[in-house]
């Protein structure tokens, strides 16, 4: 078990190294000269050359990659071309809203999607099942920003129940925090709910046909205890795996959701950086998101033993 954990953790290192190489190469092959951008409109060629040298841009590719990686490992992601602020500072300023949004969406999605999938499997072929499956397909088919605008229009503008935009830090209390995040979380959660509900239904169907469930039924165990205690527990592994993989969906969706709801998070930082070709920031954010993704999936892999005692390593 312990050896497995170590091995699994070590496996993420080459993956992250590859991501780093890829992200670094993005800057390397990008058109345009960061030195010229930093130097500004009226710089002379000598100025630009001086800045190039001071940034180390005149050195060979591998040397630059090494230096960059070394700096990253020491928590230095470079400096934004446009704001002149360290990338780590900019990320630190914006990480709370994004993590909050993703965490809330995750919780909401699981709370909604898993029961949906379970009920659909249980009532297979009925109207409820069809409704759930219909919703699931629809969830994949409507772009997140359309859902966002609809929600904002109905619940914020027409009904005035919730704010339209913005973010209130958790340190100002749970309620204000929640008020600002509920609509974005629902908008962002749509695809995710669809994904989890589908896999839950599919796995549950498989599990429900297993012998031990039939045995439990024969023994007269209650319907809900069969569903949620026996069956769901045995269906947990694929569901949790999909939840982990789906984090990628959340990250992609957050980029859009934060724009729609004016949430000052990493997603908007990404969009702004990309529109302005602020490569150090792009690198920093992509690296961070990938790291989060790899980390979450690592934790999920490690957590399998908890969900499914049959898995032994």
């Amino acid at each position, binding site marked *: 078990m312990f050896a497995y954990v170590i091995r699994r953790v070590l496996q993420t290192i080459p993956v992250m190294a590859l991501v780093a190489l890829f992200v670094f190469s993005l800057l390397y092959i990008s058109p345009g000269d960061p030195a010229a951008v930093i130097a500004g409109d009226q710089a002379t060629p000598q100025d630009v050359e001086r800045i190039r040298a001071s940034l180390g841009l005149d050195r060979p590719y591998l040397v630059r990659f090494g230096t960059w990686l070394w700096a990253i490992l020491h928590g230095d992601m470079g400096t934004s071309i446009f704001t002149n602020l360290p990338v780590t500072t900019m990320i630190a300023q914006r990480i709370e809203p994004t993590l909050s949004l993703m965490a809330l969406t995750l919780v909401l999605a699981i709370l909604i999607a898993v029961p949906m999938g379970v009920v659909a499997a249980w009532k297979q072929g009925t109207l409820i099942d069809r409704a759930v499956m219909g919703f699931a397909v629809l969830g*994949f088919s409507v772009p997140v*920003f359309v859902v966002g605008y609809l929600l904002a229009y109905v619940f914020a503008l027409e009904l005035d129940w919730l704010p339209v935009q913005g973010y209130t830090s958790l340190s100002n209390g749970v309620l204000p925090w929640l008020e600002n995040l509920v609509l974005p979380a629902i908008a962002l959660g749509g695809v995710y709910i669809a994904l989890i509900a589908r896999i839950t239904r599919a796995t549950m*169907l498989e599990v429900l046909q297993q012998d031990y469930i039939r045995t439990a039924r024969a023994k007269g165990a209650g319907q809900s205890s069969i569903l949620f205690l026996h069956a769901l527990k045995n269906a947990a592994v694929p569901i949790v795996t999909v939840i982990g993989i789906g984090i990628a969906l959340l990250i992609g969706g957050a980029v859009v959701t934060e724009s729609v709801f004016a949430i000052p998070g990493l997603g908007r930082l990404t969009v702004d950086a990309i529109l302005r070709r602020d490569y150090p920031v792009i690198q920093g954010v992509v690296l961070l998101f990938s790291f989060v993704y790899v980390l979450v999936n690592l934790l999920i892999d490690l957590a399998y033993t908890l969900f499914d005692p049959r898995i032994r390593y």
Partner: protein
Amino acid sequence: MASASVLSPLDAATPPGVAAAAPLPDVLPPVKPRKGFIGFLRRNPTMAFGAGLLLLMVLVAIFAPLLGTVDPTALAPAKRTREPSALYWFGTDMLGRDVYSRVLYGARVSLIVGFSVAILSSVVGLTIGMVSGYVRLLDSVIMRVMDGLMSIPPILLAIALMALTRGSVQNVIIAITIAEIPRVSRLVRGVVLSLREQPYVEAAVAAGTRTPAIILRHILPNTLAPITVQATYICAAAMITEAILSFIGAGTPPIIPSWGNIMAEGRALWQVKPYIVFFPAVFLSITVLAVNLLGDGLRDALDPRMAKRL
């Protein structure tokens, strides 16, 4: 670990089903006895519905010039933001362009992006997956690279790639394709690896059949089913991604009327002129829905083991 690798070919942006389709070869999809095309469709109503809808959209795209449209890029600032009417079926946008014409021509962009990404990523992913599954030496290298690429959320990867290049339909297709390739490759590799252990393949190898022949006769045909299903989901996801890229300003150039661009331009007036966003949103959603339904139907038809339950 085992369970994780079984499920990992699942594209995060595509519905599951495929996940279960990956290890399918224990029940090889027999070629169904077809009692005519109609019979086939009747047995698979979901697919028939999805395919019909999609076909309709393709026809709309192809025959857009004949469907009462005008030049979708022609400006008429004097006739801007007109409500939908007999003259302007879907109204006009803030530059006086006819939204109906733009939406119909926009179908071309979305469908081209969706189909191109689906085909390109399948072909490239198939090749990489085959090589990986067959050439042991390259397998671990390729798969590590794919792992790395897969760790970058696909939309983020596509956006980052778009930052490198100028917005054009071609670049959008390439960016989304690159983001989708790793998942297809893993799927194909998984199928190849399990097929290689099938008794009849082992028998063929033992009988001295040459590798290209085995690939052509046994491996490829059996890979096509899951990859076709996967391709439809990729097609759907690519159309959504195209819209998202345009929405955040990193997609097709704004002078091209794609659904994403029409929505991106109309979003500022969402409150007062909702129709500018509404019509492209409905068309996009219907098209993506059609492709998703087609995918679900295909999966059920090609994978009877799943079909029994879904």
